[in-house]
């Protein structure tokens, strides 16, 4: 106290000459506390990119793509989580909304938001990936697009909700029930059949994303979260679950999200998203300013489990080196990888190749396209190639 008073007195009484040096922000009080945070106006604004394939006739039938190359980490902020809607985003008031479980159950049950909050909840991290993610690379010619506009129909969050098994148990699933039909309350009445097995015990009725209540675009007040399964099955705005003996064969599991093979037959119910990885930095559309040291880094994930290994190639797949996995690899979640690299100024072809704990490895693009009929787009998980030219420019190419 005495000391401070003395110092103050000295300061006031002394020569004014030199104000203490410092940044301008150190010389005036900063902004007051506020109710919600905003990104810095000096940071480049983060935006998704919209794709509205039907234009003005169906503006709610489209997608927004997460700018993967502008983010770092394993959690996608909720406002940047990709979206794919089939007829817009409903504004659901939970005061007038129920989840109903019916069909092959001993007693049908309805749950509202208040009731669901009395149930035990669990939290788990995991990605949701649209079955159409990476589809630009299925086109015959490589698209000049940034990483997020090729692979940005995936995001990873921490989801919190009620284990679906609890609710099913209360309804009493009957012996003959092998499937359930999930229907959303949107204008598309999005409907998908989901097998109760082999992975039924993972299913979550998610109410929170990254700690906050789901946003309308992610299914407020609740959605299904089915770890590792194609995005479309994680039905948003879930209105009902109907237990049944077999699948319903809805439009979005027959016409769409099925994969036509070369012989004219089609694979149906390809639920588990394949192992995939992509170098996000550097990636298409970026430029290396000078030769020298760079860290190549990116994301890997698999619908079958943890990522076991990511290899990186700078010569278009002729030779591979194992990258470091930066976080403890989580089950069916984003895993970061990185590897230090020296660019000597000559053209290069950067690739990454992930392998999961089940031993699944990414195919080459040639292997992938050989398997499917021309024009197929879903479940694309081939190796991505970024070409680096002598000028330091990166672009999407086919190896």
């Amino acid at each position, binding site marked *: 106290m005495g000391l401070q008073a003395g110092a103050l007195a000295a300061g006031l009484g002394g020569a004014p000459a030199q104000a203490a040096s410092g940044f301008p922000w150190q010389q005036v009080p900063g902004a007051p506390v506020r109710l919600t945070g905003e990104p810095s106006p000096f940071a480049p604004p983060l935006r998704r990119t919209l794709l509205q394939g*039907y234009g003005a006739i169906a503006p709610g039938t489209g997608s927004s793509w997460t700018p993967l190359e502008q983010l770092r980490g394993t959690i996608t902020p909720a406002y940047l989580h990709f979206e794919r809607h089939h007829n817009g985003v409903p504004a659901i008031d939970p005061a007038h909304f*129920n989840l109903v479980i019916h069909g092959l159950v001993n007693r049908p049950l309805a749950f509202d938001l208040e*009731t669901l909050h009395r149930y035990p909840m669990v939290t788990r991290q995991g990605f949701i990936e649209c079955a159409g993610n990476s589809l630009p690379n299925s086109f015959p010619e490589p698209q000049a697009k940034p990483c997020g506009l090729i692979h940005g129909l995936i995001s990873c969050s921490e989801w919190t909700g009620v284990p679906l098994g*609890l609710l099913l148990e209360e309804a009493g699933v009957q012996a003959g029930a092998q499937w359930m039909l999930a229907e959303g309350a949107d*204008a598309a009445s999005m409907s998908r059949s989901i097998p109760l097995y082999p992975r039924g*015990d993972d299913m979550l009725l998610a109410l929170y994303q990254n700690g906050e209540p789901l946003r309308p675009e992610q299914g407020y007040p609740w959605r299904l979260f089915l770890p590792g399964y194609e995005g479309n099955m994680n039905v948003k705005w879930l209105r009902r679950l109907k237990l049944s003996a*077999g699948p319903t064969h809805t*439009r979005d599991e027959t016409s769409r999200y099925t994969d036509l093979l070369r012989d004219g*037959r089609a694979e149906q119910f390809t639920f588990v998203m394949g192992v995939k990885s992509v170098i996000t930095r550097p990636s298409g559309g970026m430029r290396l300013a000078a030769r020298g040291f760079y860290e190549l880094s990116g994301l890997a994930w698999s619908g079958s489990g943890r990522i076991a290994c990511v290899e990186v190639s700078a010569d278009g797949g002729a030779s591979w080196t194992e990258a470091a996995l930066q976080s403890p690899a989580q089950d069916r979640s984003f895993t970061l990888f990185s590897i230090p690299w020296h660019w000597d100024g000559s053209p290069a072809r950067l690739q990454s190749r992930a392998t999961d704990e089940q031993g699944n490895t990414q195919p080459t693009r040639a292997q992938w396209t050989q398997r499917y009929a021309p024009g197929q787009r879903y479940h694309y998980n081939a190796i991505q190639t970024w070409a680096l030219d002598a000028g330091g420019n990166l672009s999407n190419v086919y190896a």
Partner: protein
Amino acid sequence: MSTPRLCTAALLLLCLGSAWAAGPGLGRVPSAEELAELDLSIAPDGRGLPPGSGDVAQGLALYQARCEACHGAGGQGKPADRLSGGLGSLASDKPVKTVNSYWPYATTLFDYIRRAMPLNAPRSLTDSEVYSLCAYLLALDGILAADARLDAASLAAVRMPNRDGFIDRSQER
């Protein structure tokens, strides 16, 4: 520490009791009317198809009034999806996937139109109108005769050309 061991014991008990753990039992039993209104789904064998009927001529008129602006004359597509044609093309270099060339079940068509179309006014068609639209679309490629009439029994009996074209991968891990 004893806490983690306790947790494991509790978990084990829950798992042993049944495949699904027990919850607080707070669900409300919905009324029969509530369920009937909610349950519009139709099984591939036709279970769930409602009463009502409609024919190709009625379907054409409705199609022109409610669908053609988006799906084109005769279901040929543009600006929205093509709905007809493409039969026999699936194994070719230019596969054309449409309702008639690709979909395995006609029940799916009824179900989808009833709940999701027209896109700008979903759930606005009567069941008989949906039957007539299905009749019209299926007759475009000769799956039904030009004077066909559809109801629950006849729609369930329709065999789509690509009925056996799918490989079930649902039990893979």
